[in-house]
């Protein structure tokens, strides 16, 4: 595994080229270029409706881009729509609304992908599921059903479910936006720990302090284009683009 990793370190895990997406007449993303290397923690910030979530959903093909290419380890996945399931198995996703399977317990939620998609046996699946549930602090709740948990707990289970697939990169689509303020912290703590361990992550968020402290690169989007992309130090302290400065000053006032 180490060997594979060093080879892959040379090329980006994900590379988005000239990606556009329209819903009917409405153009949501315009000519997006964007790279993710191993170990990157990329936070995408911007106002609601700027296309951040759509970009993330295009990356794992929940939305089919109107034009452009997405390369995964130099493989163009746009041309291989029939292989989209095996690609998604390597690119984990955590949603704003958790999207846990309501008919399954916490443990089953984390095992189902490992047994049915990765085709591993049950005992292995149980082992990895518990390992990652412990990591997010949800191991005591393995027998609970999603409706018996709080929002923060659900989101931590959703993170464990994604981690159990041992993905190469993890996408987060506003993971704390549906949570009460006191539950935001528990989810961000888990995400910071993952970032510290070197998990590759792309995070769409409105948590500016988190983006500033945790990301290795910050991307600012507006009206479907990437306005500025740089280290969080530059973006938050000394943005080069006027619009980035404007957005952040409005945000920081609150």
């Amino acid at each position, binding site marked *: *595994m180490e060997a594979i990793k060093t080879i892959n370190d040379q090329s980006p895990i994900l590379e988005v080229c000239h990606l556009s997406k329209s819903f009917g007449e409405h153009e949501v993303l315009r000519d997006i270029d964007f790279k993710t290397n*191993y170990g990157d923690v990329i936070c995408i910030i911007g106002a609601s409706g700027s296309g951040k979530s759509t970009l993330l959903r295009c990356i794992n093909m929940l939305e089919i881009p109107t034009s452009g290419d997405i390369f995964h380890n130099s493989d163009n996945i746009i041309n291989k729509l029939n292989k989209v399931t095996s690609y998604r198995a390597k690119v*984990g996703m955590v949603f704003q609304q958790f999207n846990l399977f309501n*008919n399954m*317990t916490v443990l089953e939620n984390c095992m189902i*992908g490992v047994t049915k998609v990765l085709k591993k046996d049950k005992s292995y699946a149980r082992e990895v599921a518990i390992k990652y549930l412990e990591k997010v602090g949800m191991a005591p709740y393995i027998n609970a059903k999603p409706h018996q948990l709080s929002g923060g707990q659900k989101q931590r289970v959703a993170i464990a479910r994604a981690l159990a697939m041992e993905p190469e990169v993890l996408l987060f689509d506003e993971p704390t936006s549906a949570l009460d303020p006191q539950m935001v912290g528990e989810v961000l703590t888990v995400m910071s720990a993952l970032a510290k361990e070197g998990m590759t992550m792309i995070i769409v968020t409105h948590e500016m302090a988190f983006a500033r402290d945790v990301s290795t690169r910050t991307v600012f989007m507006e009206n479907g284009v990437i306005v500025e992309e740089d280290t969080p130090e530059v973006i938050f302290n000394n943005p080069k683009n006027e619009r980035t400065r404007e957005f952040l000053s409005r945000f920081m006032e609150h």
Partner: protein
Amino acid sequence: MTADLPTSFLGWVLYIIQNYGGLFLKGALYTLVLAIIGTAVGCIIGFLVGVVRTIEIVPDTNKVNKILLKFVQWILSFYVEFFRGTPMIVQAMVIYYGSMQLFNIDMSPFSAGLLVVSINTGAYMAETVRGGIEAIDIGQIEGAKAIGMTHFQTMLYIIIPQTLRNIMPQIGNNLIINIKDTSVLNVISVTELYFAGKSASGTYYKYFEVYFIICIMYFIMNLAISKLLRFIEKKMDGPDNYKLVHNDFMSGEITENCSTIKGGKQ
């Protein structure tokens, strides 16, 4: 012989039970078997039809599949509309006599009856299943897609189990309706409970007494089925509470391994 005949209502009821009880029980058994198997087969048909009718045509579906799917969906929607739009009593006549006349298939009244109940229930269940599938939030489908599940796996492990639970009350409704409506199959001489009543009432011309007994028997069957279904629903829901697990399931070495994640920085 005539001297032995009872004179009161209650006397007649007991007399009929004594003489025709066995026949009625046999009729009730036929009714139950027809209704239960018919509902079960109808549910399977309903799930298959409902699942196919909810397959979305997405932009990347290829042309041939698109046309094929449209065609199959059109056939299925015709099936649903046709069997919901005609009375079961008429369907029984058409299928029983039609199969003999057109295809020379000599079905027994019982198998013809079972067929009619199954496809009739299937048509109603198809609509119930479609509603049940559409009621599951799209988020869970996306959650399943995001871990790499295929459409088929998502249906099998996520959507259908939840749909089945959600439509249990409707399956119960269908079963109860079928227990009652199999009575129309007497027109093709299926020896179910109503048919047994018809035979008994014809002998003594005691319609009220006979159908009083038959009525009670239908009611008891449906009450029992109704309670049984509630029990099954409770079982499907599982326990209300969950137990927290405190003991260590894992050995220490695995806990240590937690800190390395694939794709990490050195």
